[in-house]
């Protein structure tokens, strides 16, 4: 387990934010961590909808149980987090 800093683009936000996550975190946990820095701060909540994570520019999100270590993401690479 190690801290991996990512760059987070939460859809609806105006700025890319630094997002420290753990290599063992699942994508659901990454999404929750990103939401803590964005939802209710700069982005309105959308209750009832699921948050997904994808690599910036990818068409499809990571499976929700994929870990950061398994995703192949490198330190400070940018992920997009969005309501599905």
């Amino acid at each position, binding site marked *: 387990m190690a801290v991996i800093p990512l760059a987070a683009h939460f859809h609806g936000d105006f*700025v890319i934010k630094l997002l420290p996550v753990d290599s063992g975190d699942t994508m659901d946990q990454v999404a929750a961590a990103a939401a803590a820095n964005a939802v209710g*701060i700069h982005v309105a909540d959308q209750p009832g909808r699921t948050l997904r994570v994808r690599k910036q520019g990818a068409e499809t999100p990571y499976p929700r149980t994929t870990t950061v270590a398994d995703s192949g993401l490198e330190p400070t690479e940018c992920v997009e987090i969005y309501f599905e």
Partner: protein
Amino acid sequence: MALLERAQWYDIARDTEWTPRYVTLAELFPPELSGGEGLPDEIWSTYDEPYKISYREYVDIQRQKDAGAYSVKAALERADLYNKADPGWISILKEHYAAVALVEYGASFQEARFIRWSKAPGMRNMATFGMLDEIRHGQIQLYFPHEYVSKDRQFEWSHAAMFTDNWVTLGARHFFDDVMMTRDALSTSIFANFSFETGFTNLQFIGLSGDAAKAGDFTFSKLIQSIQSDEARHAQLGTPLLQMLIENGQKDVAQKKIDIAFWRSYRLFTILSGIPMDYYVPLEVREASFKEFMEEWIVTQFMRSLEDLGLSKPWYWDIFLRDISEHHHGQHLGTYSWRPTLWWNPAAGVSPEERDWLEEKYPGWNDTFGKVWDVMIDNFVHGRTDKTVPGTLPVICNVSQLPIVGTPSQTLRDISIVHEGRRYHFASEVDKWIFEDDPERYRHHKNLVDRFLGGDIQPADLGGVLEYMGLGTVGPGGDDAHGFAWVETYRKQLAKAG
């Protein structure tokens, strides 16, 4: 009374030149300091400065300028305009003085380097006056805010900011080191004197002095006018050099220098001018938007000066035209959200009336940037102030050193590359192009986030970051300029809606 008219003796006095016998020309003017490789040696004596002045005339004019600015200051101190000014305007003063005053001293070193290293006698002569200009600008812009220190400790940043690692300072220093302090004399003159001063400083000072007068701050207005009239003269130092490059087959070299300096200058001015013009200047005295200002002074007038020389618009012109409608809105949201990291108190500038103005000037603002403000306003109205300052850092561009921002749900994107094992982030394709054109120049610098992740900032939390940046040490950090009085309108709207 002079016996001769200036025109009768100026050229022979200015052209005083010698032929080195004990050293080679390359030893006297090392290429890495002088620049102009590939230009024939004989061309330097043809440098013809567009603005000619004698030392006697210079001293007389400067004395009059100083007398005017200082007498206005003395007269208006008694009127206590400071305490009557809108807090948004005071924030502009704090931002301006700390970002500019010490840099002016740096500019005097820049001009001093021209005096020693420029191969053109005419340029060395004019740079002597330029150096004196910049010393004056440093002194007057430290002296004027000094009286405000007793009223507000944030004015201590006027002198101290450039000695700190505040993130705005990191951005300004990176820019000025790049364009003003670390290039050869010819390049520096095109980067700093032509692109930065002609394109931005000179024109920004005209706009700012007008805003100051409308806001009732005649002291600042007079100060800015006094400086601007110097800039209008020494900003022209680079123009003859551009002509030399173009006439000797180096048009591409000239164009690239302008393309780099123009973008870097523009991005810095989105903070220094863009935010204050559209959000801090009180609405009742606000006239032109930042976009309108850019369209008038930069898009039209500066581009005309480029085309007059036979040069072209920068390759990223379409990107630039789109950017002037959006980038500074993102930077304003960023600076306001992370306001404890500023040395000034930002004015939110988003009351209902101000939002109407923003929507008129920037159609679509309410549906993009306004959505973010809606969330923030909701927090303010409901007393959730802990949620109005983010708990993490923004990702910072490795060229501009500014947060990577964009229009929500439209243009926000991280652009990154891996260079020699290190990942670099950029706020635009232009910043990436600047880096890739000369990675050795930029690759070693660490932006604020690089320093944070590298362990340079301890403890690695918001408190550690603030201490690293000098907040609470040099002077207090920022908070809302108007003490959140603007939130009351929204609170009343909420109460009325039940």
